């Protein structure tokens, strides 16, 4: 194992997997930066309704935001379980993280369905296009995270998630927390700071 582990290190002394993943997160930052900027540029410029003032449900989204924040807590507790070699603790909290991610996706599915029923689709207006693209892309990232966490759970039941896999779980945690950070920004800029009169 030592040979395989040593192969992950560079002259910096840092794990290459973590360097690669932080680089990936940097590129994701640029992706979401682009999507958020596009939303902000077109905000309030729709010529057809409904607008964000008519349709966004702040209480509902506040609850889903809280759910995602708590999933980050569950994730770090799961990582702590893995690093301590406590398989039961790791399983419980990783499963809780995935479950809270699914709950968040449920909120988003409800919100999207409601919006479509209210007449807002991705082709209705600039607001619809930019809103669904941004939040849909984020939701897709949450879904990928849930699948990733599920694979870690399967690994734990196969006995392959010991404390030697701490970095592996930490990298999954980096992804999950980044998705949380993106939602923190979206919740503020899209839901709470609503500009422009729209149609």
């Amino acid at each position, binding site marked *: 194992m030592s040979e395989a582990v040593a192969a992950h*290190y560079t002259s910096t002394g840092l794990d290459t997997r973590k360097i690669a993943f932080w680089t990936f997160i940097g590129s994701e930052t640029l992706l979401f*930066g682009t999507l958020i900027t596009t939303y902000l540029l077109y905000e309030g410029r729709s010529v057809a309704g409904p607008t964000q003032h008519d349709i966004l449900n*702040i209480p509902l989204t506040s609850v889903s935001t809280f759910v995602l*924040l708590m999933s*980050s807590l569950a994730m770090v*507790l799961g990582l702590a379980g893995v690093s301590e070699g406590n398989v039961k603790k790791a399983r419980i909290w990783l499963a809780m993280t995935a479950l809270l991610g699914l709950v968040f996706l449920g909120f988003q599915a409800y919100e999207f369905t409601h919006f479509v029923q209210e007449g807002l689709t991705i082709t209705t207006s600039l607001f619809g296009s930019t809103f669904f693209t941004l939040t849909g892309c984020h939701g897709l990232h949450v879904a990928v995270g849930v699948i990733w966490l599920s694979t870690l759970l399967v690994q734990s039941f196969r006995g392959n998630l010991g404390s030697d896999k701490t970095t592996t779980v930490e990298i999954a945690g980096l992804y999950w927390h980044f998705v949380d*950070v993106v939602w923190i920004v979206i919740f503020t800029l899209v839901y709470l700071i609503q500009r422009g009169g729209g149609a």
Partner: protein
Amino acid sequence: MSPHNVETPEYTGPDRRRSSEDEMTEVVSSHPSTAEYVGIAGILTVLTLMEVGVFYIPAFGTVLAPVLIVLSAAKMVLVVGFYMHLKNDANLFSVIFLLPFFLALFVALGLMFLFGAWWL
């Protein structure tokens, strides 16, 4: 001789590589405790409640956006610093993350200025 048995040249420079045990010890010791993690979650919850609260208070009016951005930035710093361990991790990770972050922020502000959406 199998290719897998070929010996690699011995590394003679400063040994900056660490064993997996060293790494695990370092990872565990540099990470916050469970109590700290729960405390951070509590602060994040309070900040979120404050965000939603100020949204519904008409008195905030013109300062609503700056207040919300400050609260949001505080939440980001807490998650990135403590949950993503950037606070105690190698500086190189901070550089790798913050360079594109500020590039994205600079481009966003520049585009909003150019397209007349400079209202934040």
